[in-house]
């Protein structure tokens, strides 16, 4: 059986990212990569933050089985 849903969303920050992108800026940090990062954060720092968050989730799951 196939389940169908509907999606509608506007990303306001991406509108700004698109506009500023024409001037060579990349506020979402997503030029050339699939996932972005926060301003002031490098892609590597974003990966590390995601890893830390994953550890927190694992710990929470272990404590609340």
């Amino acid at each position, binding site marked *: *059986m*196939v*389940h*169908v*849903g*509907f*999606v*509608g*969303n*506007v*990303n*306001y*920050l*991406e*509108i700004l*990212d*698109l506009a*500023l*992108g*024409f*001037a*060579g*800026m*990349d*506020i*979402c*940090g*997503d*030029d*050339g990569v*699939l*996932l*972005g*990062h*926060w*301003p002031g954060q490098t892609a590597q720092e*974003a*990966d590390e*933050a*995601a*890893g*830390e*968050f*994953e550890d927190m*989730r694992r710990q929470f799951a272990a404590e609340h089985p």
Partner: protein
Amino acid sequence: MWRTRMAVAAGLCVAGATGCTSLLERAKNPLHFAALYLLDRAEDMMEVAEVGVTVSAEPGFAAYGSFASLTPVGAAYVNGYFIGLGGGQFLGLGAGRLGHCPFYLSATGVLVWGYEELGWQRFDTKNMSTLHCQDVGLPGMLTAPHGRPGPAPS
């Protein structure tokens, strides 16, 4: 001449402060630079909005809304495919697919706070570094970010 150089340097400093494009590092030659520039803008354009339908073999549930990422209400869990515009692709174009791309959404919101996990194109639901994951709602926007950010506000 030195004034031009100073202006370019100042411009790069301003751009660097807010997040400068990585084009200079990625481009191999001027033609490649121009192509990547246009490709980046096309991808940015395909990330501005998400409009389409989700299709999944396994049952999911989604009744979730959040105006400007400030008023998250509802819950959603969908792990399937997306047909439409969004996530840097349009009908699979930009994702290396034809007509659709993998899609994942897990979100919950109680108006003042909410949490969203969003996956587009290539992701592993057990690997947070492949997902957008963020707190939303006013307290969520002010607390430390979780992992990789999604395109908030949205």
